[in-house]
């Protein structure tokens, strides 16, 4: 006979929450340090690192560092550029990679496994090894835009976007997820008269919520943290993303408070995006929880 004592249960729950809170605090420390330090003048900031005061918003607090950061670098432009480049790349990448995965899983064509193998093999090639060849390619690529024909993609948004739309990891994530979907669903849709596009659009993608969220988060992190590539291909200040912008604060006189202010500003979009995706991530898992 087992009797559940409600007070005992409450205690268990409380213990669990205390432990979880502690873990959360440990993970939050660097972020708290960054946010708190961004409000302190440099001399106090350095003094406080010797004690727990480093994590507390105490002493001479002001938004001075933020104003200074804006004076030193075009922060708004950098953030806008990063958001634009990252947003467009993530959207296009999810679309293109999921379509590619659809072709690998739901369509039959000769050479399918070979092509997939080659794509997966690109996963082990570090970006650094192809950076220089890629630079040579994009520097000569033609483009027809609103202002007519031009040669060379340097100093543009597209040079930061196009090379990253299709990537092996995202395709692999979609392929694995699609393989786990019941194959009968696509076949049933086909018998009902659906075209490949309709199967993709109406059957497969509505069930792809979890993998969309995962792929979007991973792609977002990669794109938002881009440093080497934009440094190589974008010299024009007005097209540069946030990570490259960090350079501005390490030249001349180093100001830690301003660095912390700048970091705080560029971290907020990441956290916001993650929290947003986390919600849809959980929702999509719940909606596909269908028993066989």
């Amino acid at each position: 006979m087992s009797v559940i004592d409600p007070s005992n249960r409450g205690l268990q729950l409380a213990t669990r929450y205390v432990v979880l809170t502690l873990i959360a605090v440990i993970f939050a420390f660097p972020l708290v340090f960054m946010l708190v330090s961004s409000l302190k003048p440099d001399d106090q900031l350095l003094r406080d690192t010797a004690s727990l005061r480093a994590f507390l918003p105490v002493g001479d607090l002001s938004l001075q560092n933020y104003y200074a950061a804006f004076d030193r670098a075009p922060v708004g432009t950098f953030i806008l550029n990063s958001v634009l480049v990252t947003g467009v790349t993530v959207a296009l990448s999810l679309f293109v990679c999921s379509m590619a995965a659809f072709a690998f899983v739901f369509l039959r064509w000769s050479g399918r496994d070979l092509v997939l193998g080659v794509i997966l093999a690109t996963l082990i090639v570090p970006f650094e090894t192809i950076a220089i060849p890629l630079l040579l390619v994009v520097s000569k690529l033609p483009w027809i835009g609103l202002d007519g024909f031009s040669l060379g993609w340097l100093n543009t948004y597209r040079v930061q976007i196009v090379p990253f739309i299709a990537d092996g990891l995202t395709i692999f994530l979609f392929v694995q997820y699609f393989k786990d979907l019941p194959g009968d669903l696509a076949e049933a849709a086909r018998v009902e008269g659906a075209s490949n596009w309709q199967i993709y659009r109406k059957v497969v993608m509505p069930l792809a919520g979890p993998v969309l969220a995962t792929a979007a988060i991973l792609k977002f992190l990669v794109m938002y943290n881009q440093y080497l590539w934009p440094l190589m291909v974008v010299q024009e200040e007005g097209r540069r993303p946030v990570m490259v912008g960090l350079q501005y604060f390490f030249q001349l006189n180093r100001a830690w408070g301003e660095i912390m202010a700048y970091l705080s500003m560029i971290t907020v979009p990441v956290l916001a995006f993650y929290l947003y995706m986390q919600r849809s991530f959980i929702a999509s898992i719940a909606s596909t929880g269908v028993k066989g």
Partner: protein
Amino acid sequence: MAEISLRQVRKSFGSSEVIKGVDIDIADGEFCVFVGPSGCGKSTLLRMIAGLEDISSGELRIGGRVVNDLPPKERRIAMVFQSYAIFPHMTVRENVAFGLTIAGASKAEKETKVAEAARILQMEHLLDRTPAQLSGGQRQRVAIGRAIVRKPEVFLFDEPLSNLDAALRMDMRLEIGKLHQQLKATMIYVTHDQVEAMTLADKIVVLKGGEVMQVGSPMELYHNPANLFVAGFLGSPSMNFLDVEIRGVQGSRVLVANSALEPVEVMPKVGTYTPGGRARLGVRPQYLTPVIGDGSATPPNAGRLHGTVALTERLGAETVVETTLSDRSRVIAALARDEVYPIGAEVTLAFKPEEAHLFPV
């Protein structure tokens, strides 16, 4: 009109041939069941008719048109899958209307047709639920609803009942039978369950190893199996087979016997036999009866088997007696009453010669 004909239809996966030149004719409105052990190619054949698998060679016609190279949607078929394959992210209503949505039907048309399908399948109350909220039987109904709503000329069922429990399976079997009478469409039904095959079919196609073993009505196949495989596959418990030697041939009559079987004259429907040769004699368990007393009640031309009782299973309405014959082979008799046979008791089982089947070896 949607008669279906297969002519020398073949299918290979790489170098292995899984469908080996199949010829089948299915009349308009007929209920045809493909039955066979797993791996016999019945599902592959169905998927070829559906257009989900290519046809390696041969000709497939539906309603007179050659459809070998037509995609599924142009074959005017609907299919019910073993896993039901209903879309988990749509409501029942959206699932049933899926084909109509794809075809660009108007909202009013969809509503009328979905309502009609729901009425036929008695699932009006389920229309706004999602698949996660349905039981297995209800999901099956949705799958069938999605199939009937487009009014296809041919229905294809791929083991639709195998995921249901026994009681529900019987209900749904009856319903599918009713549905066929109501819709009068051509139906092809794949199963490994011979009870489903016997009860539903106008025509049964028995398949084995990618080849057609026999085609015919359920009773034709039951009473006149063309070969050992069909004889052993249909009927439960399955037919008893005895190795016998041919003692004599006179016209269409063949005298057979072995050490446990007294000489008996049977009239085989298949094969040719010569005296001194060997053959297989098949008798269904239901046609074996014990000889009582001195045997004067048993007709003199009956076949008689001698053995000892090895096992009895009393099922109430029926008693299944397993007997070890004097040549150490085993036969099963299904007696239509509750009787006790002590294990080890000597028993003589008799059968009418016209109820025995002889097959060449």
